[in-house]
């Protein structure tokens, strides 16, 4: 079984005007191989060619040169789409349809059995937390809700390859966490994920490998772990001891003895996302005002575990 799901060979895209004059080289000779079962991130500033790459893989654009192969088929081949799910950057769905009708419509495009189509649509509506709003037309949805139904339509065919363009765009921290969890879960179920995002922390959290593009050229390609690992520095984490001067001196002595230099000794900080999620979870468990002037702040490790995001807590009513 071929493990390469997506392959690009010298993939180049040049945008031209009506008269064929070159306007911009969006992508230059990109060579990529994306493996089955990984979360692959495309990173880069605006105009670096991330979205162009995704659109070339989906056949929404045609390559100027080179090849884009998905499941060993040319990207323009329609049949490969049976195994792909795509969530665009903005969820441009038909706003006159409600959630049920939307999923039913996209399900019909896959020639799904009616019973299976209905069941899968219902399951996905539950998964994305829109059960209470499934009869409302999409034009009444918030941006986050539209992103959720957009993801549901991308998963209606239970795809092997899911392509997500800015999946956390428009989502609040709870929704972002939910989305990230879902992506990881999809990967754990054996699916291949390609995502591009501006939010580097999202990519760092969940991607197995990333490609960094700049001005249409590939600048870096490797696993996140390898890319972020700083072999010039050392990190030590410990628990069960209090940080005081004596411990600090002992640690410095050991490091100096081994020819190193201590840069920082202190308590690790959590991410703002974790803190926010904890506060929301606590507030949900114990409703009412929590903050009082002069009160000790909620710190990392203050007893409330990381909640499983419930998307229904932040939808627009």
């Amino acid at each position: 079984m071929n493990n390469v799901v997506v392959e690009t060979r010298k993939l180049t895209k040049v945008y031209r005007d009506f008269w064929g004059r070159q306007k911009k080289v969006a992508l230059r000779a990109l060579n990529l191989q994306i493996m089955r079962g990984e979360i692959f991130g495309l990173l880069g500033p605006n105009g670096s060619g991330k979205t162009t790459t995704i659109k070339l893989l989906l056949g929404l654009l045609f390559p100027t040169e080179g090849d884009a192969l998905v499941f060993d088929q040319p990207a323009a081949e329609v049949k490969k789409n049976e195994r792909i799910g795509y969530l665009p950057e903005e969820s441009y769905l038909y706003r006159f349809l409600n959630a049920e009708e939307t999923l039913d419509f996209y399900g019909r495009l896959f020639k799904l059995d009616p019973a299976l189509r209905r069941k899968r649509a219902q399951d996905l509506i539950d998964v994305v937390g829109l059960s209470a709003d499934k009869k409302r037309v999409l034009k009444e949805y918030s941006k986050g809700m539209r992103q959720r139904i957009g993801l549901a339509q991308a998963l209606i065919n239970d795809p092997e390859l899911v392509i997500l363009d800015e999946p956390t765009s428009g989502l609040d921290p709870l929704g972002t966490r939910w989305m990230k969890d879902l992506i990881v879960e999809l990967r754990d179920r054996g699916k291949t994920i390609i995502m591009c995002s501006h939010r580097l922390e999202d990519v760092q959290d969940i991607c197995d490998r990333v490609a960094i593009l700049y001005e249409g050229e590939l600048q870096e390609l490797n696993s996140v772990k390898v890319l972020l690992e700083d072999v010039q520095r050392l990190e030590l984490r410990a628990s069960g001891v209090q940080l005081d001067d004596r411990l600090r001196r002992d640690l410095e002595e050991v490091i100096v003895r081994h020819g190193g230099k201590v840069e920082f000794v202190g308590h690790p900080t959590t991410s703002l996302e974790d803190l926010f999620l904890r506060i929301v979870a606590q507030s949900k468990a114990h409703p009412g005002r929590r903050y009082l002037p002069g009160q000790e702040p909620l710190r990392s490790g203050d007893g409330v575990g990381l909640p499983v995001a419930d998307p229904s807590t932040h939808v627009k009513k």
Partner: protein
Amino acid sequence: MFAAGLELERDPLHWAEMPLALKAWVQHAGLVAAFGLTIYCLAYVIKGSFLSRWLPTEDRMTPSNAVAGKLSGMGRVIAVLECLSLASYLLIGGWALFFVLGREEQPAIRLVEPVSQAQPLFTSVGDTLFFLGGLFAIAGVSLPILVNLSRLRLGRIVALARLSLKEAFRKRVLWAFSIMAVIFLFAGWFVPYKPEDQVRNYVRIIYWALSPLFLLVACWLGAFSIPTDVKNQSIHTIVTKPVERFEIVLGRFFGYGILLTLGLAVLAGIGLLYVVRGVRVESAQESMTARMPIFANYLEFHPGFIRPDGTRDRSKQESVGREWNYRSYIGGPGPHSPPQWAIWSFDSLPTYYPSAPVYFEFTFDIFRLTKGTEDRGVFTTFTFVDGSKSMGEIKELREQVLNARTKKLEQTAAQAEEMRKKGISEAEIQSWRAEELERIQSDLITQFKYYDVPRQEVVDYHTLTLGGENKDQVAKQLALLFSKLAEQPRPRPQSGQRPPPILNVMVSVDPESAAQKLGVAKRDLYVLAAEGPFWANFFKGIVGMWCTIMLVLGIALAASTYLSGIISFLVTMFLLGMGFFKDYIQEIASGVIGGPMDSLVRLVTRRQTSNPLEASPTTSLINTVDDIYRVFMKGFLNIIPDVDRFDLHLYVANGFDISWMPVLLLDNLLPLLAYLVPCGVLAYYLMEFREVANPT
């Protein structure tokens, strides 16, 4: 004031003309196909893989294949077809120049329009080559589509059609149709009519109101649907599903097509109720029916129009100066002018005689030279005679019949006198005399196969039945005449000539109305075969309107696969507008006087258009180049839809049946298909080659 008859400037297509029509379609559509295919092949040579995404992987026109000149499978077949097509077109030019140069006779090329079944299918080598060039080009263009047709799935098309329907419903497109309520409520206030014109006027109101309303809605829906999807990027979520792009076009077409069809059916139903409410008796008699006429095969005139060169043109008589020269005018005999005849010729007779009487109906136009007698029409004589008789024979026959009739009438008068002497009552004598007159007439018909109906009063703007109050008696005599004509052996046609007609109906103006002119056209006189229900005919007329709506929808959708919404809308409306004047535009493009070369020579040499160029090899070359130009211009002008043919309201308004076979199927639905197929091909390629996510 509207005429009561069926005023059609051209005959509907018939089965016999189908080969010619098909040939013309291949020639014209093929020319456009050849143009597109040539651009494609040039683009292939230059760009390689850009345009080859629809080919199977092994046949892809990749840059490496392009450079190496390697093609396989379908690509090779397309290349061969393109070469054959181009070769045919080049041969036309070569043939024309080689064979015609230096000859005086013209022309090198003449395309044959489907006007007469008597014409041969191919008139010249150029004609045949033009057909072959088109055929090869169409085959080249169609091949990838035919191969990919197997990929289309009905389920997906239905899903997209349902989406279009829901979109139209929820975006409240149907509200546009409520404009019709204004027409239904208030139109009657502003439309004055004579009693007999009531139905005619109401039908016109309904058709004239429904038609623009639906055409605008169809154009709007078709032009803006796909561009809006592209603009909103909703199309990204569709083309990234296993959906063939052409399925999007088909889904949109069928979805909107169903919506418009339903809307049209409902509004037409309401329109029918509007028409039939409170109809006056005069109007109901005039046009609230569906006459099934049998028209003559052709109309000729005797003595005919005198051309400037002194010869006679039998296809027309006099012009009274009306702008629309649809009718020719005959006058009565005068001291210095011979009698004029309008002669309708029937190649076959209705098959239902003699079991049923034969009713003739007519609607003529009167052009008055004098005021005449108040409230009186123009008096005419209708003569029915064997179609193989010459004018001289007819005059002789007429004399014989007159003599025989006079003799028999004298005998009858004498017998009546004897009966009076015998004391038989006057009532019995009159009854006997009436029977005797009928018998005499039957005897004369049997003996001479000649029948005339004198002193028929013609009134303007009315459909009249031959015989007036005695129409049943006339119809009976005509049935007898028909049976006698059918019994006699037909003379064989001379080689190269059409067979003589079986019946001629000759109409002349009586001496007492000699100062008036009678305007006649081919469809002004007909045998009334049967009558159908008005409501069914009303809906048949709506089918014609439906064809126009579908045509507009198809053109708008095809345009919108490449152009923006507003531009597609304008292009479609422009083509539709041109379609209403297509005949006029084609007349200009055909160049009645001369083509661009001819004009150039005249400009340079300062020669007038009325002065023909002298016969010489140069003139021959000029004419040949102009002919080729005309042929190609005519081909390209065929992208203008012929919307006039779909306007059937004249049939309904004047109470003529719209037949399913020649009119609806052959003259409406098939031409609609002939336009929609090229639109579909265009939409297919534009959608396939379109980068839906390209911002440029």
